[in-house]
Every structure is written in structure tokens, then in C-alpha cells.
């Protein structure tokens, strides 16, 4: 995984695939997944689906993308406001960090 390079576009596409798998094919009830799509208000992602999302991110990108640890640093208002764009940026930034 150390050679992975990821752009926001490629991560957004991957997140679209993962969320369709986690939530189902009517994920896009209110239009296509975008950077502004909110997990709480728009997708109404449940805690069990957050767990599945974390597992699939780990599977896709490896341990460099530690979604669980990232979520653990959030306050309640952060979780309510969480958007797809923030997750995309987090994945891109995690993969850009040097391996150590």
C-alpha cells in the first residue's frame, strides 16, 4: 500500500462504491453522492453502517487509513456535521503521509 497515490476524485468514486455496498443501491435517493453529502442528515448512516464503512476503508486502503481512530477524536457535533468530502480529504491526507 505504500505506493498508493490517491486523488479526491478516485477516493470519492471508491467511497461511492463502498457506501452503495453498505447502504444499498438506493443510496442516491436525493441525487448523486457529492463532497457535500452529509452522513447524518442525507445518508442517515447508522452506527452499524459506520462500522461497515470503517472495515471497507481498511480493506481498500490498508492500515494507513485509520478511520476508527479518526472518528474517536470527534465530538457529537462533528459527527452530526460529517460530510463525504471530509472523509475523502481524510483518506487522501492519510495516504499522503510518509510510511513510518
Amino acid at each position, binding site marked *: 500500500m505504500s505506493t498508493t497515490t490517491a486523488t479526491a476524485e478516485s477516493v470519492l468514486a471508491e467511497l461511492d462504491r463502498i457506501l452503495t455496498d453498505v447502504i444499498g443501491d438506493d443510496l442516491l435517493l436525493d441525487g448523486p453522492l457529492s463532497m457535500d453529502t452529509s452522513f447524518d442528515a442525507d445518508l442517515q448512516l*447508522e*452506527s452499524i453502517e459506520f462500522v461497515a464503512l470503517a472495515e471497507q476503508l481498511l480493506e481498500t486502503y490498508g492500515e494507513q487509513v485509520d478511520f476508527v481512530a479518526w472518528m474517536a477524536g470527534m465530538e457529537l457535533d462533528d459527527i452530526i456535521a460529517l460530510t463525504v468530502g471530509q472523509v475523502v480529504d481524510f483518506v487522501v491526507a492519510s495516504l499522503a503521509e510518509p510510511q513510518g
Partner: protein
Amino acid sequence: MARFLFVVPPFTGHVNPTIAVAAELARRGHDVAWTGLPGATEGLLPDGATFVPATSSEVAAYVDELGDRRPDLRGAAAFKFLQEEVLLPLAGAMVAGVDAAVDAFGAHVLVVDQQALAGAVVARKRGLPWATSATTSAELVDPLAGLPLVAEAMHRARVELQLANGVAPEVAEAGDLRVSPHLVVAYTTAELVPDVAVDAPICFVGSSTTGRTEVDDFPWDELEADRPTVLVSLGTLNADAGERFWAAAAEAARDASWQAIFVAPDALVPDPPPNVVVRTRVPQLAVLRRVQAVVTHAGHNTVCESLAAGVPLVVAPIRDDQPVVADQVVRAGAGVRVKFNRIKAADLGAAIDAALTDPGLRAAAERIGASFAAAGGAVAAADALEALVPSA
């Protein structure tokens, strides 16, 4: 003889389990009373019950307005609303009244619902023995396990509530208003909740509500005698929240091999298939003896009553504690989970077929049912509560 004061929120599912326990204590010669919001709470109690109002009727009216609890909210936003806009203000509004009720009634022991935190504040301030009444199992596990900052903020808010109401700082900082160190009465069993995360003596009593008397006005002759039957219920709070759900349920039932009882407003099932009986209320215990599967939003009492009857479940949790309870059912092997918001008729139909025909689901439901039968119900709860009475 002792005096037991039940401190409850104005929610059906949190009051109902206490009624049989109070009746058993009264049968043994103790005095029992409830305190909470006037109006809403009183209406949930049996005739002749002793009720001491904990607030003015103005406060009760304000909480009533919150009563629909923002049905549009889900997930973390619903959690924030319940904690910050309902439970903490409710606790703050009730503390002085519960304190006065303890004096007026001469309470020796408080029995405090996990959503009526004022009772725990008063018990800690006065040094009274108290039991937690865990009318849902969601607070016995640790749903905020992966979110330490959220858990800490919730703890901090409950400490502040105590400090604002005269609890000594060292007492307020220690422990948890939701968990009495003396006793937790849990209306479930360890077979269904194997992953308890609280550090306190827990008495698992199973269901206390399965002995209640019901008014049976159900039109039984509208059901076919030998056809598999499914109960579909979203509980007392959520029946109106499920427009899409009821449409999917009606479509799943159409041309199905089974028949169904829908507990729903008529308006949400405008054209029911001939194999569906729609009622706004049912005698649930009698219905559970008649059905082979239950579809529920995973409300704690409906789940426990269904499993106590050995009936497999299809769980479609909406919010609050329901996703946690639904997880417990699935992990116990006694039910199948479907989505509530994105429900589709085909998925719901397949889940119902599994609940009706999968012998593994049936066996697990019967195993959990046996654990409920062995748990002792209201009698076990009364035994544990009596042990808290200070000796004279």
C-alpha cells in the same frame, strides 16, 4: 413495611415495566408510589395508583410539546436532541419535585428509570438507597465505546446536573446517574445481553409485562385459522413515522403465503390486501400467542415480549436505543435485520419468510424465551428491591 418511590419519565415503554413490579411489592404489604410529570405519566398508571407530581402542569405541558421528539431526526442528531433537549432538561425540571415527593411519601427506596435522572440526583444528594430501572438494555452495553469524547461530554453534563442541584463534587464525579451502585433491575436476560458494560449488581428479571391483563377486542375471526401469521408493529411512538415502511409492508403482504396484523393508523394503509388486518391497538400478549413472526422497530418491550413468547423477529430499528436492541436480537440469532428508512417490499418479504421458516431463528427465539421464563419477572425484581430496604 417499606415505601418504594418509582421515578419515571412520561414514556409508555419506561412506565409499563414498573407497574407489575409495584403491584408485587404492594402484594407483599409495601407502599408504592410514582413520581414524574403530571398528566402524561398519570395516564400511564393503573387506576388507584398513588402519584406525586414532580413538576407543575406548565412544565409538563412543555415536555409534552417535545413529546413527538422530532420524528425527522435520526442517528447522532436524534441522540443529541434526546440527551440535550429532552432528558437533561427533564431531569433539571424534576429534581426539586422529586425531592419534595420523597418527603411527602416518606420514601425509603427510590426506583429510578435511566431516563428520569432526577431520581438518581435526589438519591445521591440524600444518601438514600436506590435502584436503577433499566427499561431498555441499550444503556447496559456501551454504545459510545468508539467515541470517547462524546461519552466524556455526556458524563460531564450529568456531573454538572448534580453539582447544580447540591450533590457534593466528589459524589457527583464518581459513578454514573444511569447506574446505581446498589442495584440495576434489567428487564431482559443475560442470554440476550451478554456484553454488559456496567459495573454494578444487575438483577436480570426478564419481562415484567407478560402477566398484565389486556382488553381483548381483536377481531379474531378475520384471521384464517391455519395460515402463518405475522404481527407488524412500530410501537406507541413511531406508528406515524413510517409512511414508506407501511407501504412496503402492504406490498410484501400482497399475495404472500402468510397473513398479517398491522398495528398502524388506517390512513397509512389505505388499501390493505385481504390477508392484512389493520388495527390502531391490539392486545399484544394474546396476539403474540397467535403469531409465528413479529416485525418491529426493535422497541425494547415489544422485542422482549416477542422473545418471551419464543417468536422470531424481523427488526427495523429507527433510532435511539433501537439499533442497539436490534443488534442484540441479530447477535442472539433470534431475528433478521432490515433497513427502516430504505425498506423495500422484496427485502421485507424475504426477511419475513426467513423468520417464519428458518429453524435456527425459531430455536434461538425459543432459547431466549426459556431464559425469560426462568428469570422471574416482577417477583425477582421485588425480591431484589426488598433487599435494599434499610433495616429499622
